[in-house]
């Protein structure tokens, strides 16, 4: 079992014919993802990677039955691409694009809230259901099918955690990189709700970082609703205040959003908090017995 993504998802790629879009479309297809076509305005009617290209998302949905989309569109045009996917009725959307202005994301978030679209990202590596499908830029080969769900604001730190799980023979149900921006489509809590409904997920790894209060909100949700073990790590224990640590959302401002605060909230909610990022895999292994 898994959440959100399986082989049954019919995927289109927005920004299909660009360098990034092409490369990752090929990687996704090679992994087993059902990619049915792509969208590049002005190139409708042509073929790319042996698949049809459409001018609009609506055309692509009509002709292919696509229910899922992934966006590789440069920041100035990304908000428009998201709204086009939402309007066309895409159910699951991943936005890889890094660097979308906050002013663009505010109305996008509003539109997402009023729609039936689940968006992951932006500024994220996407998600993967090992052995089934990947929708994003994550390296497929480090993942293996299993029963631990992974949610993270970071890309490579997630790979690190997945690597540690794999080294102990622990596979994953689905891994979701929710992204490092201040406004994202799906929060930790949104994804936790999906994992809660997946009887096959027996444990959850949640990797947060400094900035905002999404981890604290997730802690409150976990305390009330999640009965399986949760292991968490918060990156940025040594980050100085007021500095943006790479991710636009990773900033301690006004004394808020520190790792210490987040770790305390997680512990109070009964979550197993790793002080050391090298302990994530071992802690989960111990909890699963």
């Amino acid at each position, binding site marked *: 079992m898994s959440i959100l993504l399986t082989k049954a998802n019919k995927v289109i790629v927005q920004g299909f014919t660009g360098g990034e879009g092409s490369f990752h479309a090929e990687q996704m297809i090679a992994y087993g993802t059902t990619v049915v076509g792509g969208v590049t305005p002005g190139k409708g009617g042509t073929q790319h990677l042996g698949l049809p290209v459409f001018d609009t998302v609506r055309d692509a949905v009509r002709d292919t039955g696509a229910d899922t989309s992934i966006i590789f569109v440069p920041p100035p045009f990304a908000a428009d691409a998201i709204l086009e996917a939402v309007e066309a009725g895409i159910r699951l959307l991943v936005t890889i694009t890094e660097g979308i202005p906050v002013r663009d994301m505010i109305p996008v978030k509003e539109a997402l809230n009023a729609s039936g679209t689940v968006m992951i990202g932006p500024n994220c590596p996407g998600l993967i259901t090992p052995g089934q499908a990947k929708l994003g*830029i994550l*390296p497929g080969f480090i993942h293996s099918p299993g029963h631990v769900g992974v949610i993270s604001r970071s890309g*490579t730190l997630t790979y690190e955690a997945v690597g540690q799980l794999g080294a102990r023979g622990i596979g994953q149900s689905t891994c979701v990189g929710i992204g490092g921006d201040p406004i994202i489509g799906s929060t930790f809590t949104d994804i936790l709700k999906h994992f809660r409904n997946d009887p096959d997920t027996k444990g959850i790894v949640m990797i947060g970082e400094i900035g905002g209060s999404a981890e604290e*909100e997730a802690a409150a949700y976990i305390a009330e609703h999640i009965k399986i073990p949760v292991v968490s790590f918060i*990156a940025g224990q*040594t980050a100085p205040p007021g500095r943006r640590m790479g991710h636009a*959302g990773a900033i301690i401002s006004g004394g808020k959003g520190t790792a210490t605060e987040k770790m305390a909230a997680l512990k109070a909610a009964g979550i197993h908090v790793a002080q050391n990022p090298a302990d994530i895999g071992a802690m989960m292994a111990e909890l699963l017995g």
Partner: protein
Amino acid sequence: MKIHEYQGKEILKRFGVPVPSGVAVLEGEDVREAAGRAWDALQRPVVVVKAQIHAGGRGKGGGVKLARSRAECQEHAAQIMGMQLVTHQTGPAGQQVRRLWIEQGCAIEHEYYAGLVLDRQTSRVTFMVSTEGGMEIEKVAEHTPEKILKEAIDPRTGFQAFQARRLAFGLGLAGEAHKAAVKTFLALARAYEATDASLFEINPLVSTQDGGVLALDAKVNFDDNALFRHKDYQELRDLAEEDPNEIEAAKWDLNYIKLDGEVGCMVNGAGLAMGTMDIIKHVGGEPANFLDVGGGANAERVEAGFHIILSDPNVKAILVNIFGGIVRCDSVAGGVIEAVKKVGLKVPVVVRLAGTNHEEAAEMLRSSGIDLIVAHDLQDAAVKVVNAARGN
């Protein structure tokens, strides 16, 4: 992106926010002469000489002074220009003052706070005001949260006049001051949206004895992600306020932040870069920097990264920690080898490469003839680099 107070005020003024008139004095000008001219131009019994640095708390640090005569204005200006201003935001070394803003003094009746910022919980911009002007708003939020009034801005309609009125009434403003405040709040909201700001703080916003309001300070930050549509902001950038290594890093599309420790790190991905700093601390070391080499960790960028890390004399050892996903470890290893050959091994370098093609990469490092310390996982890497930094 941060800008100076006087630049922020010039922008706010264009949107109709009332600000005191003033004159900027830049490094390189004859300070006394410029300050004298500012006094003459402002024609007030009192002027305020304000240090312009990208940090708050300037007043407490001695960077803001009142002058009641031309001579006093010149005296303060000469004293503040060039001083090493230490505030709670600059760190113990302080920041050298290279620009001044000399502005008209005014007859303050009451000090308020006004600010706009994204509320990440609701994904909406929040307009905040408080009667506790002149204080650190974080402290007000902590001790007397009821003294902060908030209005969320609905992206479908924008900030509305009724919300501005509600804030002004909430502050207890009446008559002319109320009208002026409503106008000012609407102007601030317009400016915030139009400029792609990430933070506005007017602290204090004051009511004056003639029934008006004035923005006495202006902290204006812009969203870095939106700079592509504001090419003119480049002129507002003051490179003297930024760390030269961070400027150099940005040229290579590297994300570098200097810290105070002795263990340099070069990592791909912001989350793993923070995690690497954390584990260094966890095993008893102190990270010297945050450095995200990003997705395309090629030889040139790795080399630039080494140069930047090594320009910090505190660095005693370097950890290269790469988890290759899309990035192939063999190409990173090639970059490390090439970079080390060019830069030279001034301090021990520990390399940990995991993920795509890590075995090929390990072989390349082994056969390179360079004295690198190879680590097999994150824990091992952290222990080895901290030991190396201690000279073990």
